[in-house]
């Protein structure tokens, strides 16, 4: 049984249902565990104690003596022990069981063991029949995704002023060609699920090889940090409907720019690949520098191509850049554009390096395959870097553009826009912590708004009172790819802080989870009395602690932060629905102990 026959989007939907089922199953497993512990307790109390002398004539449960004729007890149908009148449970004098046998029976019913036994009768060869189909399916997909998946890079820090040219979202009018839409759906959801199977990947690579010969595309130079992203990016250039594909201008640019810079840009990019992680982390750990003063502007065109379902960013040029190498008065700038989706997914493309200029001209079209509907949840981050000697990179400035208010129109030539470059936000969460990013926390979040829509029967209007308070439920489903160090210390728990505007801070703690290398808490942290309006500006800190039983202080293994407004908007705008997030864990955020 697998889901290979379903379309990617359907598969995703089914897996979402199965994920919900898993939460219910976890609750159920906890409940059953408790039931069985209680049963053990009853059994222990009611067992004949072999250290004590007892005669045949005592009740097997309470050890009270039984008479020969009077109160002589009777044999339990279940365990064949002689039982006194008091230790019987049952409806009639004939139909009864001893307390222990009764407890066994109850547990068998309440735990659903009866069902598993019945099922095993029909499917005797199914050795793991206690696993539900949903469980198996989910596991098989998680396993597959672990093989194929490279952990997502943490999103670049986002905090600089946003640029919004039009302010209003315009409804998408242009219809897609259906086949194209399906194709793009499948691609985007593949990125999201990080490609469920290796076969899919192979398929894409096959497409890629065909494509290379046809079109010397710029994206071949534009590497990304994960091979999955690479394959997806390349796929975007496969003209699946060749006649629809615009050939011409883009190609010219890519050809003209593939000059002598090629080698350098490739080698510097490769060094990034080796270091792994996001450019920010790779920059921070060794070769990252920032110019003392960020100057200059960047000219960009943002456009959405409905024909190819690609977000097309044209990097035109920069001017008045700061000198990357101040000593030798040299600057070899290149521009890197990251498309960040839903805080966790990130596609990065870059231009080649232009040498010896602070006013480089690129005219590069970078294409991000993307379903149009996802635009509203994404933002662009364009960073300008100096590619220095010995693969040293110098940060020259960045621009962050939110796309949710962007108006994309087709057919019309987009006028390009100048953006002034801003320095990296001064924030400890920025470079320093992301550099030690390790592992992720899988988090589900739901905002339950307690405000009920009220219906006004006179005006036939529905009012939603916005000032009412709601409740934020956070389930830390589990942690993935934690560093080995935190895996060995296995008594982990999660502490969640919700920092609200003003000096309010709500703290919640999950139970300690003992001795599990891949911890799954599935515990709910419930933050109540949260106003919907506050949600946009609050920060959720999730800390992963190691509980050390015999010392007073627990060890902080790492923490994850959720504060991006776009993610909160998702949670608050669709209340009462679970949203999944993968938050990168940053180790030793503050190095604190309590």
């Amino acid at each position, binding site marked *: *049984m697998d*889901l290979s*026959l*379903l379309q990617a989007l*359907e598969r995703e*939907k*089914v897996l979402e*249902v199965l994920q*919900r*089922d898993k*939460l*219910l199953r976890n*609750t*159920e497993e*906890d*409940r059953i565990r*408790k039931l069985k512990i209680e049963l053990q307790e009853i059994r222990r109390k009611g067992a004949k104690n072999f250290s004590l002398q007892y005669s045949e004539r005592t009740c097997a449960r309470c050890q009270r003596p039984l008479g020969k004729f009077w109160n002589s007890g009777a044999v339990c149908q279940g365990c064949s022990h002689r039982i006194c009148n008091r230790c019987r449970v049952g*409806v*009639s004098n004939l139909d009864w069981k001893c307390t222990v046998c009764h407890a066994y*029976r109850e547990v*068998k*019913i*309440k735990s*659903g063991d*009866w*069902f598993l*036994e*019945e*099922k095993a*009768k*029909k*499917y005797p060869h199914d050795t793991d029949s206690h696993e*539900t*189909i*949903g469980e198996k399916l989910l596991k098989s997909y998680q396993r597959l995704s672990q093989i194929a998946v490279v952990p997502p890079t943490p999103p670049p820090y986002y905090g600089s002023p946003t640029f919004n040219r039009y302010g209003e979202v315009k409804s998408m009018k242009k219809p897609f060609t259906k086949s194209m839409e399906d194709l793009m759906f499948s691609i985007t959801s593949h990125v999201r699920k990080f490609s469920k199977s290796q076969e899919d990947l192979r398929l894409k690579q096959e497409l890629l090889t065909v494509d290379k010969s046809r079109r010397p595309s710029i994206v071949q130079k534009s590497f990304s940090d994960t091979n999955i992203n690479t394959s997806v990016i390349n796929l975007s250039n496969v003209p699946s409907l060749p006649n629809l594909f615009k050939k011409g201008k883009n190609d010219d640019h890519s050809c003209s720019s593939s000059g002598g810079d090629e080698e350098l840009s490739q080698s510097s990019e490769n060094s990034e690949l080796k270091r792994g992680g996001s450019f920010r982390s790779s920059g921070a750990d060794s070769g990252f520098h920032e110019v003392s003063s960020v100057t200059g502007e960047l000219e960009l065109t943002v456009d959405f191509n409905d024909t190819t379902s690609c977000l097309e960013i044209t990097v035109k040029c920069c001017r008045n850049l700061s000198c990357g190498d101040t000593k030798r008065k040299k600057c070899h700038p290149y521009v890197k554009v990251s498309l960040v989706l839903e805080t966790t997914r990130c596609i990065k493309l870059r231009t080649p390096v232009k040498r010896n200029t602070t006013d480089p001209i690129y005219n590069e079209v970078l294409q991000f395959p993307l379903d149009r509907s996802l635009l509203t949840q994404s933002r662009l981050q364009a960073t300008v870097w100096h590619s220095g000697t010995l693969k040293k990179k110098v940060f020259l400035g960045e621009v962050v553009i939110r796309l949710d208010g962007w108006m994309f129109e087709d057919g019309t030539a987009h006028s390009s826009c100048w953006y002034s470059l801003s320095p990296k936000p001064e924030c400890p969460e920025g470079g320093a912590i992301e550099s030690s990013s390790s592992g992720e926390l899988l988090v589900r979040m*739901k905002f*339950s708004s307690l405000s009920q829509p009220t219906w006004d029967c006179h005006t036939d209007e529905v009012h939603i009172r916005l000032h009412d308070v709601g*409740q934020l*439920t956070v389930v830390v489903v589990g942690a993935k790819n934690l560093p080995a160090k935190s895996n060995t210390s296995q008594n982990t728990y999660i502490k969640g802080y919700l920092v609200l505007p003003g000096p309010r801070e709500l703290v919640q703690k999950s139970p300690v989870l003992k001795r599990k290398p891949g911890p799954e808490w599935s515990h*709910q942290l419930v933050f109540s009395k949260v106003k919907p309006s506050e949600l946009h500006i609050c920060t959720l800190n999730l800390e992963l602690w190691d509980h050390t039983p015999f010392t007073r202080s627990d060890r902080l293994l790492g923490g994850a932060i959720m504060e991006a407004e776009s993610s909160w908007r998702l949670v608050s705008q669709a209340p*009462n*629905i*679970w949203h999944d997030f993968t938050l990168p864990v940053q180790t030793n955020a503050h190095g604190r102990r309590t």
Partner: protein
Amino acid sequence: MFSAVSTMTDGDYDYLIKLLALGDSGVGKTTFLYRYTDNKFNPKFITTVGIDFREKRVVYTASAPNGTTGKTFKVHLQLWDTAGQERFRSLTTAFFRDAMGFLLMFDLTSQQSFLNVRNWMSQLQANAYCENPDIVLVGNKADLPDQREVQEKQAKELADKYGIPYFETSAATGSEVDKAVITLLDLVMKRMEQCVDKPSPDPANGGGATKLEDAAPDQKKCAC
């Protein structure tokens, strides 16, 4: 969509009972379950993708064999919703085996959906956890009498042949919806007791009154 669950994610219940709704596409499985769990009606047809489930917590009062009302239990119902569409068939039938009871649904305004009940019965026999699981036959859309194509007598006869209860429900008005589910729940609860009280029941005769004979139900009728 998931609002009712926020208060019941804890493990404070006595039984987890998994029921599953099946039947042709468009008979109203999703709206039926929506009516049952949320007491709301959504007239829009949104086809179910593969599978889904809804939850509801109910209080069940056990009736003791001597006629007195027994203890009350908290029951957490997991109500699986399946896609009726043919292309999801292999997925949905795989989920049959994890359900303890079944709501076999057809559309009272569609003769075809009624004719397909027999096929669904054989699917159940092949894929459910046992040969004769607890089933309730549900004819939905009883609120549309002028479009009715299946007569009550017809459906009742079929249900009798299989030895299963029959209800005519309306997800739009909510009539008989609760009753159908509670009847099924009752059957499952009784089945549980029977299963644990018979230490080695004959697998071909799990103790239920339900008989699931796919082959020629008409002949069975004559046996009595």
